[in-house]
């Protein structure tokens, strides 16, 4: 406990006070902390704070090694600093551009789309992030969680060694250890990649407008970045090896690709980059000129871009935590296998968040962090439910979903046992705007199991406000709602969400879902 410094008495000090040795511990053990958390992101912080609330003595290690582009950030993990938050903000910025175009049809005559200021947007976004970094740090202090801005690794199963940015080391012992270090973006093994290209680690704080950009990858990260860059008026190309959004519903993934192409995002597919060279260095606030050589259909081609962004996958930081010293089991891709209680093969070591095989989503990490803390230090026995976790891809046409994709449902229940209801829809907000290439893509789909009373096992929505539409309906899926439950529900009009209360046409009937006539 630190002494209050704001007083007229002289209490100046320059040395960090160590945690008190005499404070109560939760269980009978001789370690300094009841819980040490490695990783100060969504999952780690939620776990640490919940444990502290339950009376445990907790510390959190968080440290960000700069990216190859030398970007670094503060407390809060991927979501706050280089993920969900800046992504959603920049996606929102690009949607504003679209809405300004549509505003004219609503009578805003002067709503011409102006030039977008990249640096102004980055300033706003980073200002918010830094404010949150600060708040999180203060929050930990207020909740009596010790925070070490150090890179931690195992010495043994109860001892962690932290190293700060000046190389100073500290050893800490803990009864339980939770690993929640998350992951970092992958770079391909081709010349010039780490020297000249950037990743999602860097785009959200880029000091200059990225200019003509190539996004490599078919992940949601690649498509979301390409989407908002294009929306901000930037010449954007996506390079894809095969299919888009692997793991997501194929039908919807395809429609997303078609929409992005329709609005002008360029696609190079199938293609893979083989080399990146710098033609002109970045200077005076301007981006560099990079020559990208790639193979498309077996033919070698090249093109010049100002920015190349790799979004080809992420790897958990498991290998960096010295896992072999404690015999921690982990897979070649870094994922740590855990049981349903997030426990690893090492009895007192747990893992959650992006480093385990589960949907890599902030609310899931937070939920599992909190429930784990309650099981370890409280009376709870509640386990995290990893089924039916809803999510949204914030591409220019948003895609929200919960439950199984159509393919996964067919694989699980058999094609004859699946009934798919679907429809196109036009949100009322869009009926007045001028006809454009954006029309005709809004779509809703419900996947049902015939033998279980048409129980709804998958919900899919393409259109605006996808997260808001799907979020509430996820409750229906977790509670076992059937098609007739949805039919009995009275929707709100006029909204997009009501589309799920009036689905009539099945895929199996072959009926058209197109608008017939005016």
């Amino acid at each position: 406990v630190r002494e209050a410094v704001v007083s007229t008495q002289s209490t100046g000090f320059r040395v960090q006070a160590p945690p008190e040795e005499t404070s109560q511990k939760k269980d009978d053990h001789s370690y300094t902390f009841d819980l040490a958390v490695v990783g100060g992101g969504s999952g780690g912080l939620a776990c640490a704070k919940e444990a502290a609330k339950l009376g445990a003595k907790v510390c959190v290690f968080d440290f960000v090694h700069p990216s190859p582009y030398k970007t670094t950030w503060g407390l809060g993990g991927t979501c706050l600093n280089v993920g969900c938050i800046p992504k959603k903000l920049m996606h929102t910025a690009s949607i504003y551009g679209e809405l300004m175009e549509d505003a004219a049809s609503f009578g805003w005559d002067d709503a011409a789309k102006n030039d977008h200021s990249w640096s102004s947007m980055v300033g706003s976004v980073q200002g918010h992030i830094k404010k949150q970094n600060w708040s999180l740090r203060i929050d930990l202090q207020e909740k009596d969680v010790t925070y070490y801005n150090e890179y931690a690794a195992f010495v043994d199963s109860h001892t962690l060694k932290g190293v700060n940015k000046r190389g100073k080391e500290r050893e800490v012992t803990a009864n339980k250890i939770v690993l929640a270090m998350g992951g970092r973006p992958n770079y391909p093994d081709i010349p010039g990649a780490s020297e000249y290209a950037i990743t999602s680690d860097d785009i959200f704080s880029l000091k200059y407008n990225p200019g003509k950009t190539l996004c490599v990858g078919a992940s949601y990260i690649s498509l979301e970045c390409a989407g908002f860059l294009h929306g901000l008026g930037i010449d954007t190309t996506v390079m894809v090896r095969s299919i888009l959004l692997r793991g997501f519903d194929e039908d919807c993934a395809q429609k997303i690709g078609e929409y992005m192409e329709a609005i002008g995002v360029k696609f190079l597919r199938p293609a893979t980059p083989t080399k990146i060279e710098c033609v002109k260095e970045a200077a005076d606030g301007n981006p560099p000129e990079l020559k990208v050589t790639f193979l498309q259909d077996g033919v070698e081609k090249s093109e010049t871009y100002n920015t190349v962004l790799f979004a080809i996958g992420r790897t958990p930081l498991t290998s960096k935590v010295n896992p072999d010293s404690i015999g921690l089991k982990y897979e070649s891709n870094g994922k740590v296998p855990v049981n349903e209680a997030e426990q690893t093969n090492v009895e007192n070591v747990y893992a959650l968040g992006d480093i385990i095989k589960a949907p890599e989503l902030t609310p899931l990490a937070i939920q599992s962090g909190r429930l784990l803390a309650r099981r370890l230090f409280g009376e709870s026995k509640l386990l995290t439910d990893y089924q039916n976790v809803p999510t949204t891809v914030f591409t220019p046409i948003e895609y929200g979903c919960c439950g199984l994709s159509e393919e996964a449902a067919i694989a699980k229940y058999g094609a004859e046992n699946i009934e798919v209801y679907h429809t196109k829809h036009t949100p009322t907000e869009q009926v007045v705007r001028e006809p454009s290439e954006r029309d005709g893509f809004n779509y809703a789909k419900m996947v049902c199991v015939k033998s279980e009373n048409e129980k709804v096992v998958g919900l899919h929505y393409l259109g605006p406000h996808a997260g808001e539409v799907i979020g509430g309906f996820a409750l229906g899926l977790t509670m076992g709602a059937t098609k007739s439950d949805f039919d009995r529900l009275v929707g709100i009009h006029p909204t997009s969400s009501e589309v799920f209360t009036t689905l009539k046409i099945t895929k199996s009937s072959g009926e058209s879902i197109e608008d017939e006539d005016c």
Partner: protein
Amino acid sequence: FQTFQHYFKRINLSMLRSIVRPLIRAVTPSRSVGSVTTLTSEDEFDEAFNGPTPTLVDFYADWCGPCKQLSPILRKVVEAHTKEVNMLLVNVDEFGDLAHEFDVMSIPCVKLVKEGKVVGGFVGNKPEEKLVEFLDKELE
């Protein structure tokens, strides 16, 4: 006259300034003008913290509205004060460890330091009169 003109042509405004200013300074009552700097390294902080001149450490952040209001007024008060006092602006995003050491929990946070000790301070934006009052009292 030609010689006079030749020499006078070479006298320009900046030359005049460099003659007149010291003259004015010599005849006006002296004022201890403290320095106002923004911290660039932790070593710089140690110097200010341990030094004999009282220093007002202004912990701030770029995203903090009240900080943006307080800092210029504080600077004005520091520069106008008759007693010598320096002002040191510390960006908490850059120097988070320092802010943590000094228990800065919310900003703007101002601490008066001198000879290795914290001798006073306050949190939050304050009107100019209160700042003058604070400095007057603490520098007695």
